[in-house]
């Protein structure tokens, strides 16, 4: 799922300069799961904004709401408060929600309360790690399920570089060297031949290389009304 973290508070307050009526809007999906943007976190942020408002005499009123997701517009029917009544909406959704709400409600000022960081999974209570880069060309079949694009700092595809230090990546000492993990996994699986194969240079078009990506499921397109016989 998408992992995101609360932006520095001063940055949020700077965005809110001049706003008197603020809505903090949580999202009930990924950001709830990683404890960054759910109902509770929206309440916490609202309290902090109120505190800052009290201490500096800014006179900001803050309301809190949370909808199931901010990336499907049907959920916008469930607002407790009409966002149009606010000078600013601090969205605690990931960047998708912020961008989508901005598109659907162009008259509103939707501000990002979070920095969206990565696609990750929960590896220990309270801990999420990056697992996928969204490169569009998954190679996990021949890397034993370990993604070299997301989990190797250099996104190499032919094996370890010289920077494996004690099994960790020398770029970030707390990170495992993904290629070492891949090597060990392939060895366990008896599939070291996959490591031996030369992987040609990647086609980055499936990643960001060819611009904004989209998925189209034509079977769900709108159907025109059929004329009655």
């Amino acid at each position, binding site marked *: 799922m998408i992992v995101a973290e609360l932006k*520095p*508070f001063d940055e949020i307050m700077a965005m809110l300069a001049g706003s008197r009526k603020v809505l903090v809007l949580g999202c009930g*999906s990924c950001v709830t*799961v990683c*404890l960054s943007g*759910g109902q*509770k976190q929206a309440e*916490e942020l609202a*309290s902090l904004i109120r505190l800052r408002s009290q*201490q500096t005499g800014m006179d900001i009123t803050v309301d809190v709401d949370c909808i199931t997701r901010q990336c499907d517009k049907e959920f916008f029917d469930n607002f407790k408060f009409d966002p149009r009544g606010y000078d600013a909406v601090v969205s605690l959704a990931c960047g998708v929600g912020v961008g989508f709400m901005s598109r659907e409600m162009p008259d509103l000022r939707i501000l990002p309360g979070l920095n969206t960081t990565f696609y990750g999974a929960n590896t220990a209570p309270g801990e999420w790690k990056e697992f996928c880069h969204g490169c569009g060309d998954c190679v996990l079949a021949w890397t034993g399920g370990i993604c070299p694009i997301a989990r190797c700092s250099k996104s190499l595809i032919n094996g370890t570089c010289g920077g494996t230090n004690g099994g960790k990546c020398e770029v970030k000492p707390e990170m495992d060297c993904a290629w070492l993990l891949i090597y060990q996994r392939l060895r366990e699986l008896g599939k070291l031949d996959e490591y031996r194969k030369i992987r040609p240079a990647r086609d980055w078009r499936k990643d960001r290389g060819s611009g904004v990506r989209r998925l189209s499921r034509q079977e769900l397109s709108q159907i025109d009304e059929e004329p009655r016989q």
Partner: protein
Amino acid sequence: MNVGRGNLCYNSVALREINMAHSDLTSRDVASLANPAGLMENQYAPCRWACPVHADVRTYIQLVAEGRFAESVDVIRNRLAFACVCGRVCHHPCEKNCRRQDVDEAVAIRELKRFVAEKVGSSGCTVSRPETQNKARVAIVGSGPAGMSAALELARKGYRPTVFEKHHLAGGIPMTAIPKYRLPRDVLQMDVDWIVAHGVEVVTGAEIGKERTLPSLLKDGFAAVILATGLASSRMLPLPNINHPRVYPVLDFLRELAFDRQPAIGSDVLVVGGGNVAMDAARSAVRLGARRVRAVCLENEQEMPAWEWERTEALEEGVTFIHRRGPVEVVTDGGSIRALRTRGVKSVFDADKRFNPQYDDSDIQDLECDTVVFAIGQAPDFAFTHDSGLEMDSRGRLAFNPLTQQTSMPNIFACGEIVTPPGSVVEACASGVRVAAAVDMHLQTGSIRFNDALPEKIGTIPAVTAGKVLKFQRQAVDIAPANERVAGWSEVDHNLTEEAALGEARRCMGCGGGAEVMVDKCAACMTCVRVCPFGIPKVTDVARIDSALCQSCGICIAECPAGAIISRSLPVGDVQMRTRHAVELLPAGRKIVAYIGGFKASAADWVGQSESVEGVAKVYLASTTRLAVSDMLHALTLADGVVVVGCGQGLDRYPQSAGRTSLRVDHARRLLQSAGFNANAVQISLAAHEGLAGVNEAIRQAISQMSQP
């Protein structure tokens, strides 16, 4: 008069509209309920389920735990008129079903009821008398638990009940037949006075069947009559010399004592019978100074119907037992009783477990004695119904429809032991409550239709969960030593002290009052699964929390990032609401909010009557496990600082309390710091177990830390 925070206000109409099958609660449902407590009406804890009047045990025990004694008694008296009497004599089927016994021992529910009902007395609890009582007049014959409970319910519904009691004192069997060492007179009076305060008229010294008869009552303007005379006569046997003055029917014997008269006895008393009433008679005889008191019964030790503790206490007081013998003749000698002739008993119950004693007439034994009390059972007395037109059945008992509680005459009803099998005080009360509803339906609509079905009972607690609940020893009741007891009529066991009562009430697991997930808000994030110390939530489609297992620690509720979990036993937003109220009461100047884990707090602490620290609003919680980070930040928008006083490691009622509280305070401080606020505005101290002085000192120290930058 209202009853506190609203725990008792539930909207039963909304409940019917919510499909409560298997926890599909949504946020819309919660918004439509005035109070989530209504959710507990769909599923009874075993204590409530087993209680004949289905008192809301969970709620009143929780109120005791919070020192809210008057409110607790109100909850009890909502269902049970005879709160004080039952606190002394109830056979507590609730305790037999209490799920705590699968952890360590059942909660001492009866002792807690006794503690709180007697502490509050009759004047301290709410009298919910309606402003207008102008519905029909109803006559009730007999002022025992059944009749008085019926009268109370009718008064609450706006009727004008009049209770006719043949003796000069009201109370029925509790007054005439339960010895004062078991039920002091002033305790019974608390219940009677409270009932009367609802507009119940009690006419004593008025025996129906004399100047007033059942037909005359109806003619006098009573729209209905309820017969509640109970088991008024003692069973006797047609034995030779049975009418000797020193042969007492047990109810006569006990009644003499009840009316402060000394029944004349010799020094060697023999009580015939093996039930509780026989024990009452034997133990009373000891106190009257008899040199020797023995009880002889048909049953052996295991078969004896008396409660085990009655038997044990009787033994301690010097009563001895003779088993498997039945009376044949009272043997006199020159005007005095010399012995009771008895025959052997081969068996008491037959193969169908029916009472069918088989005797051995070749085994005759005379038991020496000079006084005999027959306590072989009690029976109703129907004499007063003769010439009233009431039909009897083929066994000579009142013809009676148990579903509608009507006799053969539609306006004459019956309740209690006059028509039910012999039972306890609480069962009589249940019968009385039900007949009042029958009378009401009859008089208002002409038809009586009951749905006696109960909500489902919460299931047993599995060993794996029971093993994780922290054990606390049950409070033992202080019983006077036998030699002191027999010296007079003072009570055998003493009330729990307030501290003991609070400790005992806090052993209650609050079955059914725990967490519930609003399925439309749940993101299946696994947080509740990971933080529950008891391993209870399971995520299938969304998180599901088995209400039968939840221990109400509140950790998942506080940690859930979606705010998708509510507590059934607390109003939504309880902590923040109470914080607002508490802060409003503070004078101008620096304001601090102190959240205190109340596991070891006194009653005075909980109700805000103990010494406070200036400028500090104290909010007591069952445990700081219930306090969320968002609550702490919310408090800071109302006050200048927050102190969280939790219990020390391993000293709270819930596991992981100290650790979980510390993590949350750290997180709150981190949030404040990263937002440029003074992180020291939130302080923690794990001193809640140290008593008031320790807590107040911890608060003062915490406040002094707040000014550090």
